[in-house]
């Protein structure tokens, strides 16, 4: 429930920013959307078990789902790379306006 709410809020904010003018806002929207997607991935696992899956200390019966965590770890880094790239695009022109001046 709480996870779903967080996802909903992030998606709404991200989509709103994506639909604005200017590259920076689009990048920020993208960041928030990727947060939302990462949380969806987490939510797809078993979120009722929340012990860190460090088997030196954890019990396999209560440890959190490691699979979505591995996905999300990859996703975070890729999203970071794309974010930097999009930020670069924002300054590769004289302005980050994404719309023709009307």
């Amino acid at each position, binding site marked *: *429930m709480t996870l*779903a*709410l*967080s996802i*909903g*809020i*992030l*998606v*709404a*904010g991200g*989509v709103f*920013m*994506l*639909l*604005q*003018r200017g590259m*920076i*806002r*689009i990048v*920020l929207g993208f*960041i*928030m959307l990727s*947060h*939302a997607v990462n*949380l*969806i991935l*987490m*939510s*797809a*696992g*078993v*979120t*009722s*078990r*929340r*012990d*860190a*899956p*460090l*088997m*030196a200390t954890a019990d*396999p019966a209560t*440890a959190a*789902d*490691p*699979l979505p*965590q*591995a996905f999300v770890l*990859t996703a*975070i*880094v*890729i999203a970071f*790379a794309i974010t930097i*790239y999009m*930020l*670069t695009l*924002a300054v*590769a022109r004289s302005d980050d306006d994404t*719309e*023709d001046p009307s």
Partner: protein
Amino acid sequence: MILPVLLGVLVVAVAATPLLDRGLGRNAGWVLAGVFGTLAAVVGAQAPAVLGRGETLEFFVPWMPTLDVGLHLRLDGTSWLFAMLVLGVGALVMAYSTRYFPPGRRTGFYGLMTAFAVAMLGLVLADDVVVMFVFWELTTICSFLLIGLSGESANRPAVRTFILTGLGGLALLAAVVMLMVNAGTSRLSTILAETDWQASPGWSVAVALLVILAAFTKSAQFPFHYWLPDAMAASTPVSTYLHAATMVKAGIYLLMRFTPVFGDFPLWNVLLIGTGLVTAFIGALFALQRTDLKELLAYSTVSQLGLLVAIIGVGTPYALAAAGVHTLAHALFKASLFMLMGVVDTRNGTRDIRELPGLWRAMPATATLMTIGALSMAGIPPLLGFVSKEAILDAMVGLPGEPWVGLLVALGAVAASTLTFAYSFRMVYGAFGGSPGTAKHGEAGPSYLLAPAVTALSGLVLAFALPVLDPLVDRLVLDTTGTAHESHLALWHGFNLPLLLSAIVIGLGAVLAWQRVAVDRVLDRQLVPVQGTQVFEAAYRGVIAAGVRIGRLTASNAPAPYLAAILLTLGGTAIAVTLGRPVVPAQPEPTTRPTDWLLVALILVAVTAVVITRSRLAAVALVGVVGFAVALWFLLLGGFDLALTQLLVEILTVVVAVLVLRRLPRAFHPTPRARRLGAGVVAVVMGVAAGLAAFALTGRREMSPASEYFLRNAEEETGGTNVVNTILVDFRALDTLGELVVLGVTGLIIIGVLESARLNHGRLPEKVAGFAQNVVFSARENSLIMRTVARGLGPVLTLLSLYLLLRGHSAPGGGFIAALVGGAGFALAYLAAPAAARARIRLPYPRLIAAGVAIAGGSGILGYLEGSFLRPLHVDIPLPGDGYYHFTTALIFDVGVYLAVIGVLLTALNRLGTEDDIHAEEPLGPGVESTDEDDPDSEDETNDEIDEGTAAEPDLASPKGGRR
């Protein structure tokens, strides 16, 4: 075991070429010629077994066992012939290259030529359709690169060749897929032997057509013939290899390989014979038109390939026997003619017969050898070319079916051969005949003439040792038609129809040669209204123009309209689905905890603020807050590594964003209220849809079997206790490798983008004359605390990052996190520096990225020691005293990850953080020593203060203020 060794030695030779090139320059060719020659001898030594006793050498290693694709290699008679050509002609071309090129290094040439040999050898040895396709494509790529080596003027020809032969490659791919799906195996010999070709005639015809298309593009058959003369832009050794032994012979090989199954398809016979003869005729006709010797030879190759395709199309044992002999004969005479043409070209500075003086006296050896080659090409006894042409005519006359059809086909070949005679004469007479002039340099040295002499004289010697070729021909016929055959190649077969036809060819050809002035007058015009290259370019432009036109239908520079349409459809669908099927399984266990609500509230507040604010800086900071909240979420969900990664990524994103922001206006571009409202509606719809979907569709099941497996077995199987890390570097390392490559590419793209478009310097700080000398605005003084902290913290961060890297397998940490910590150290050093110019961390960041990806990939190759790519190896290293250190190659992989991530971070910092050079070098004045530039942080404060304090400075306060 011989077959993989052949390929392996060549691959090693490719790797060694840079060294050889550095040490020996053009003479590296001698070493390679030795390698090729030795390998050719090894293949030749298989002749008694393969040709004499009819054995077939095979080799197999699994490659993709789950797809049943393996490195199947197979040497039968057909492969033997082509392998000998690749290696033998390769050796001679390498030797020739040492004298053809001027002294000095031949960067890339030898490596690419050897790689080309690998590709071609792999192609003719492959007994797996997938492997065969891979090598087929490699020949295309190598030829593209080799043609492109010749400089600017060769660019378009290289591209045209690549696209056309690449097209054929796609046809082959389609055929390969169809064959694999149907047969259930990728083994070529099994497919050829066991497929039921009668079961579905339409399917068989489709495969046949695809194979034909692939072969025709590769072997330059009409209407694709134009690429071969176009590719003349390549240097002569490349052309020699391309024309005589590789590339174009790949198509011939493919047709021979598929003859056992398609040889009696009427469609196959008609298409091959028809196209082959047309190609043979027009190729010869165009050759007769040329004055450039190289072009003449190129069209001659087109013509000869046409003849080969036609005779393969006949499909009888006699025809395939003739095809085998002619393949050999053509390789020999074409290699010598090309190389000798190169000799003439380099000695005289031209290869145009209108400009060449009569070189007979000046270059007698070259002239003799070229005459021998030309006689073989023209089909005159006693040369191998005569034997093969007789055999071809004989097989054509014997075409099954109505006798007149065979005769007609043979007459087509007679017409082409007559023209061949004429252009052979034209070539020799053009180069060497006529009034003797003074040659620039005289005769070439023996080492230069060695290679062409070997090929030309082989054509002569073999004609007198024809029984030697009988076993080869018999085996080839058995391979390609499945029929036992006993050939008796001979120069003299008695008076028969082929001999009469040969006599006609020679007679008519002699007439054409005698009447060459008249012939020239007739041919000295545009024979066809269009040229192949023009058609290609028109089609090429047309495709691009069509793409542009289609794109323009919806094109707009603003992304919002597209996005809104997509998002609304998506959101609407999602809501409709969710509302339409309200049956939702119950949650097995409660997934919500009271503390979660704090995060929901935090995210709600931060996101709302992001949406409302008009200041860029505020928005970036607020998105950072959102990121922290998400990191906390990960922590609550038990993801230690995730939370750490997210936190660090958030910090670094803000650092990079700030570097970017100072070049942009302060506030966002204004958007009208109606638009904000519209966007708001779309956003809310999407948010509700996503939230509902997440609530209804996720978190309603038990742990997946895969997760359960990882939790229970990770430690046992990998020695690591941090399950998430073991998944990343052990179980699913290939995914991580892919991710790493994405990361590396991003870094390179950033460099590329900023190289091609100058960095925007829009809002860099302007020096305020009055304040510049004031200590309050001195970047140096202001960054003192930061610098002090950084000095102490930098080494700690570096050590910490190394520690995190080493322990990642068993505790939170690993390559990503360690690199992000290290990157944070660099960011700190960057921010603390008083001037951007000084903060540049002078590490070769593109190399770091490359090294990272290479190390990660290389550690994957180590995994082959235990059977598969990226499989981690484990060693327990005993420590002094007690205990063991558990070492795994996964750690090397993690080091690769570490380097690549650091490289990308440094790229972003260095590239986005650079100042305008004018700013950086500007001296401040006598009062302040050497602080050229405000550092990014204090600069913002500077401007803020000006904003508040001196509103009378509209220039600075306005978003567009600044230098530009």
